[in-house]
């Protein structure tokens, strides 16, 4: 990971302030983070520390009040000014995984994966083939035609992971993705992120409370009272993700 190459994602001195005057709340202050391609980063911190604020800012969902966000070397946000169509940019470059699986209830498992690719212009046949590969890789191919309401929490989360990987994103953002999973499944998901990062060259940021799998991460950041600080690195994972 060379500093001369553009980072998968780089956040510089992000500040987010809600309200103004007496009601002003500083949710995040001068938070900076550089995630290289292939790097897996854990973001730790207590509830209300500003982790989700940081994640939604770098995920181009909420604008920061101040600071710059670059993805793949392209400046996307400077303060609250966006330099690109954020929704289109999210579609092409970012993959999201949340604490709750967040699947679309009226689409089957495979359609939930396909939709992400079809929104990016992938054909129905190609998107179906890759979706099936991802579901097989994640061990839920036999549930491809089931609706989310027919799946367990773990199965739903794996479908959500497949959707996040579908467009081969350059950045994957995960907000407590293992909260609904048991320890074993949780670790599997974390290892999967590491694999994706290393094999696809994606930068991965995972907000987590799960300290049992911290060895999977390359870098650990901690957030407290809106202040972001870097912690210690860890080892990484292996195996092969469908290309």
């Amino acid at each position, binding site marked *: 990971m060379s500093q001369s190459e553009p980072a998968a994602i780089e956040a510089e001195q992000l500040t987010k302030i809600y309200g103004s005057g007496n009601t002003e709340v500083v949710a995040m202050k001068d938070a900076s983070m550089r995630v290289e391609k292939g790097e897996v980063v854990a973001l730790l911190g207590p509830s209300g520390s500003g982790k*989700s604020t940081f994640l*939604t800012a770098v995920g181009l*969902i*909420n604008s920061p009040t101040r600071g710059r966000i670059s993805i793949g070397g392209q400046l996307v946000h400077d303060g609250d000014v966006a330099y690109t169509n954020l*929704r*289109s*940019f*999210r*579609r*092409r470059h*970012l993959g*999201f995984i*949340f604490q709750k699986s*967040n699947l*679309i*209830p*009226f*689409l089957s498992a495979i*359609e939930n994966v*396909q*939709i*992400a690719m*079809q*929104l*990016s212009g992938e054909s*129905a046949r190609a998107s179906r083939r890759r979706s099936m590969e991802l579901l097989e890789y994640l061990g839920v191919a036999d549930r491809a035609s089931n*609706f989310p309401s027919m799946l367990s929490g773990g199965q739903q989360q794996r479908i959500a992971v497949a*959707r996040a990987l579908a467009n081969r994103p350059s950045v994957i953002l995960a*907000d407590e993705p293992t909260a609904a999973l048991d320890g074993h499944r949780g670790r599997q998901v974390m290892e999967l992120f590491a694999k994706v990062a290393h094999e696809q060259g994606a930068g991965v940021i995972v907000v987590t409370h799960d300290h049992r799998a911290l060895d999977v991460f390359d870098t650990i950041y901690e957030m407290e009272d809106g202040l972001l600080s870097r912690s210690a690195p860890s080892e990484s994972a292996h195996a092969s993700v469908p290309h």
Partner: protein
Amino acid sequence: MNLATKDIRHSFGRFALTAVGIGMLLMVVMGMGGIYRGVVEDATLLIDRADADLWIVQRNTRGPFAELSRVSSTLVYRAAAVPGVLEAREFVYHTIQRQRDGKPLRIAVLGLSWPTDKGEWLPLIAGRTLGQVHYEMIADQQLGLALGERVTLGKETYEVVGITENMISSSGDGLAFFSVSDALAIQFDTPGEAVRLERAARRARGEDFELAIRQPDVLENANKPASQLPAVAKPQISAVMITLTPGTDPDRVAEVISGWGDVSVYTADGQRELLLKGSVERVRRQIGLFRVLLTIIAAIIMALILYTLTLDKIHSIALLKLIGAPNSVVLGMILQQALILGFVGFGIAYLVGRQLFPLFPRRVILAHADLLQLAGIVLAISVIASLLGIWKAMKISPNEALA
């Protein structure tokens, strides 16, 4: 991937129920249009079927459909003598009500000008035209009379020799066709006691005349039937229908006839116009207003349904936006659902209406033009109704997927 159909597939029961509800509402809108069309059709049916070029009616009246008209029965001979007239027919028309099997039976009686008109122009579905000048009738199926059935009207009994279809008066009563003389006999039927009283009155009046005093035999006439008294006029008819020889200018013939002081003359189009602008106009406006109201109500209900369907999908829409779906995808989903709902509702309205409307007491006519117009209205209200849901969807933030 069509998200609209995927969502419908997932909650098909609810969608089907909603579509049935919308369909029933649209069926009422469709029915209102059909009732109006039926009223107009029924009102103008006789004018169209009789196929007369000119109608001669009582002076300064708009008869015989819009108001009562009485003209002399000899007018038919006068009219026939006008150059350019191919045929002049008597027109006798009135409505009677009798009891049949304990229920009221309303009959619109129409006289056919025997022997020139035996009812050849009638849409017979059974039986035949009139075969003799008396004691036969052709009845519309709406009257519920069977072929060969004998019906007593006044002092005479008439046999049903033919059955027609959809021959309805402007007030919705089934038509029955008799010879003009029978129609007049039914119209001017007088009970025996009334005849005796009239004859006694004639005698009493005659006794006051000097002529009767000097010639007592004259008083003997007072006891005779009215038809045998030269001083008593023949029963009057409603109008005279004229058919012109081909190539004759109706305006020229009308000009000649309108010069007569006792009658007015109208073209068939004029008669139709009088009817539609007169008695049918209020009904038309009433039904039209109801139709507009129902259309607005249908649009409001559809808007609320689509808004509710959108509210149910807030999380999914937020998620779609989060993973980068452009607004056009979300907008398309809501709009397509609105259109599917509208057109499935329209289809249900049409199919159910076709089964139900024939059971209505008056005709409900689903004209192609009206159906196309309603389809256009449904398309418009589907689009308009979806605007509320689209507005809500556009306001949804991707953040809501994280909530």
